[in-house]
């Protein structure tokens, strides 16, 4: 095709799969709920709007002559499709007091905003040098947002001020802070690449260099604060994990990572001793069956949902995931496990693996060291986030308030994750080969 308009054929073909899945899924839910066999296209408005947005996005990429990766976007669309279906599935079970639309309608609106964010990101971010130059701006923005939220934020029942009330919607700046952090760290670590890989000797002990120690200590402190103030082990692990991943890429020293992990683990152990509310979470995780109707209600009901799902699941709309409290944001994976079975649950895990692997593959081939570091950081935001919340759902790790990327109901996380996707797609253009 040369330099003429490159239509993203692979992407367009792959988008057929989530489109079909969304139509069939929505129809199943509709029919299961109504108990009838007739339907009309108007019942599928939600899916049709979603499909239109997905294809329009692909065309937008073509219009912008972006030749980057064509796999990331379809995988993300498949995951968002599942998210939309689950929100439609779970919407009647959620109390709708004073909310402006049903859960699935809201999810569709959030998706529209997220897609728009993606459009804007791929259109605006053309050169990564600009992003790099603004690295301290990102750091300041992150700090300001965090402090602002802590001071003016509202508590939506999680026991910490994580939200900002904007009238009709509440946003969670914490989601964006993660991206800002990656933007800053990529710039900072890339600047000090040479120093970090070196080390200096103080007597007989080889010490890591100062540019390593300063951010490490800062990140460590931040993560410990997250554990204590937000009572959220998962979020802390996520923040610290992203940092360790980026540090490892720059330094390639396993010892640094292990030392960081050790420091983190030590802090967590101390926090468990000192703060009963933190250790209580761990207790619920380890022994939910000792209090199955109180604190252990969520994990016990999630276990039951998984167990009832069996291999093939009850089918969309035929299970009772509503039995799990706060299922739409905390336990979507358990709902998927119940209604789509082990096969569906493993397929979702597989999608995340595919997304992460593809992202890392793309990153590995980027020549620009800053863009590569940034991409790895962004991929690990999604990957670690998915891993931590999935592990929480299956009791591999204490449950945390992190959202499941692209699937959980919630606008802030959707918009942020599509922003990450936009950056990744743009970065994929910087690879050695043309795609």
């Amino acid at each position: 095709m040369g330099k003429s308009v490159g239509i993203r054929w692979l992407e367009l073909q792959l988008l057929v799969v989530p489109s079909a899945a969304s139509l069939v899924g929505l129809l199943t839910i509709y029919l299961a709920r109504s108990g009838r066999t007739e339907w009309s296209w108007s019942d599928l408005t939600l899916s049709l709007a979603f499909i239109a947005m997905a294809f329009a996005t692909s065309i937008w990429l073509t219009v912008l002559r972006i030749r980057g990766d064509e796999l990331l976007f379809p995988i993300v669309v498949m995951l968002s499709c599942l998210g939309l279906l689950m929100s439609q599935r779970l919407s009647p079970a959620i109390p709708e007091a004073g909310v402006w639309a049903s859960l699935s309608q809201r999810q569709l609106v959030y998706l529209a905003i997220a897609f728009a964010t993606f459009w804007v990101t791929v259109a605006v971010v053309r050169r990564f040098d600009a992003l790099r130059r603004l690295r301290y701006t990102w750091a300041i923005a992150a700090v300001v947002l965090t402090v602002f939220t802590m001071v003016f934020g509202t508590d939506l029942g999680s026991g910490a001020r994580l939200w900002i009330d904007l009238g009709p919607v509440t946003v969670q700046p914490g989601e964006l802070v993660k991206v800002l952090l990656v933007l800053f760290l990529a710039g900072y670590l890339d600047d000090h690449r040479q120093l970090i890989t070196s080390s200096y000797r103080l007597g007989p002990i080889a010490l890591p260099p100062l540019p390593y120690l300063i951010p490490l200590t800062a990140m460590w402190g931040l993560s410990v604060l997250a554990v204590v103030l937000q009572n959220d082990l998962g979020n802390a692990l996520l923040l610290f994990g992203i940092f360790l991943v980026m540090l490892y890429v720059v330094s390639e020293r396993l010892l640094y990572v292990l030392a960081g992990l050790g420091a983190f683990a030590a802090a967590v152990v101390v926090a468990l001793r000192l703060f009963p509310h933190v250790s209580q979470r761990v207790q619920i995780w380890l022994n939910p069956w000792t209090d199955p109707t109180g604190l252990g209600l969520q994990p016990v009901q999630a276990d039951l949902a998984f167990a009832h799902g069996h291999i093939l699941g009850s089918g969309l709309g035929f299970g009772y995931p509503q039995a799990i409290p706060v299922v739409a944001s905390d336990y979507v994976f358990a709902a998927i496990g119940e209604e789509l079975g082990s096969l569906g649950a493993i397929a979702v895990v597989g999608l995340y693996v595919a997304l992460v692997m593809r992202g890392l593959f793309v990153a590995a081939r980027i020549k620009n060291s800053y863009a590569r570091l940034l991409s790895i950081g962004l991929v690990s935001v999604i990957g670690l986030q998915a891993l931590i919340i999935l592990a929480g759902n299956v009791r591999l790790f204490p449950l945390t308030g992190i959202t499941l990327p692209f699937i959980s109901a919630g606008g802030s996380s959707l918009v942020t994750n599509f922003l990450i996707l936009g950056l990744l797609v743009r970065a994929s253009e910087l690879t050695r080969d043309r795609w």
Partner: protein
Amino acid sequence: MRPFLQATALLASVLLIAYGVARTPDRTDPRWFAVLAVVAGLWVVALWPALPRHRQAGRAIVHIGLVLVVGFGMVTVQVLRAQLLDRDRIFARAADPASGIVDVRQYVAERQRERGRILLRDGTIIARDEVDERGGRRRVYEGTAAYLAGYYSPGLYGAAGVERRFDDVLSGHAVLSWQTWLDGVLHRSRRGNDVVLTVDPRLQELGQSLFGDRAGGAVVLNADTGEVLALVTSPAFDPNRLSVPVAASSETVQQARDYLRALEEDGRGPLLLRPLQGLYVPGSVFKTVTAAAAFEFGVAQPDTVYRDDGALVIDSRVIIERNRPDPNRVSFTLREGYGYSLNVVFAQVGLEVGAQRLEDMAARLGFGEPIPFELPVAPSQLARSPTFLTSQVGLAETAFGQGELLVTPMQMALVAAAVLRDGDIPRPALVKEVRRPDGSVAKQHEAAVWRRAFSGQTARSLRDLMIWSVEHGYARDARIEGATVGGKTGTAEVGDRTPHAWFVGFAERDGKRLVVAVVVEHGGSGAQVALPIGRALLEHALQLP
């Protein structure tokens, strides 16, 4: 070398996971996490990529990918464990009423899925589901044998009896074949399986009518197969009044509560299945066990002669003999002592046998342990305190059936069955078969021997004793035309109150061998009260096809 190492690591991880699932009860057991940690290590080995030298620069990215993939792999293992391997454990935990867990899905499935029926051996339905006009389900019980089903009360009390013991079968959760497994996988709802009891409805009804208002219990067994042909308890309860469906009206719930309270306050224990759960002083029917010990250990023969002059003094305690047929006779054989139920004779036999051997024989017959049966059977006891039998008085009293003895009718029926079976105790059974909704048989009762109690020689001697007792002794009224009948009556002293009336016996005709055990609480004389019930049951049971 590399592929071999990788394959070994993968295989080892699979085996390790299987071991972990088998050995740990839950997915957050520390030992399970230890297993997962080792598995993760094995996977790192198995997935470790062989990077060409010139690609060393991208090593860090590969390692990050590896860690994430192994992490997602752990999530997959946890999912599969919850959904495939731990399912039944999770359900079992939730099903425990004490846990307080509400499993909505079970609840809804309960309303949608038709529970299997409970039938008697000829097809009479005693428990079935009924759908009311609003689509709700209700359990309905019919016939005098209805209480054998127990009750099914998902809205209030859970389940009891056969309904509880076979809940997984009746509800359809039990995996009886690959077909039911497939139904479970596909979430296909099928009617539950039917449970067919071995009980004959007419025999059961006859037993119930013979008891009338009197309290007591009776069990009729087929000695060859162990099948329970009748299991009568009186007074009984109406399971219909205890079965409360899900989402029942508060009025229904209140009525069931009131009924249960009335049953509990009744004092006669209508909720108890007496042949299994009732523990009674056996009186003279226990002499069969004493005789068994005497024969088995060669202490005496049926013809061994004992002196009985109307009283026996042991350690300054006087045992008065009331049963001698002729006050002028002072010597009796053991056979006569059994047939005339002479306590003085059996006190002497017991003393000769000794505590050790009597305990040994009782243990061999199943005393002191739960009898294997579909419903719980209370263990019978030889003595309450371990030292009781060391005293001569205690041993003598036990030998003729008093002392601290407490037995269930089922236990005594099994003693009689061992006599017929040359010393083998059959494993008693209440369930004849389990049928799938399409009528095909999923499980069938197979006759089995529970254990061996005594030698064939001992069995023949005991059989001789029991037949003599019917033909010449006090159990004379038990004779049945054309059948060989053996038996032993018992009149068990219970303090100052009217004694319990007992009859334990057997009947043989045309290769059919049946045993019966009857107890009428505070009924009086065994020969006059319990024997007619036992005889009628045996006679009727012999006529069954």
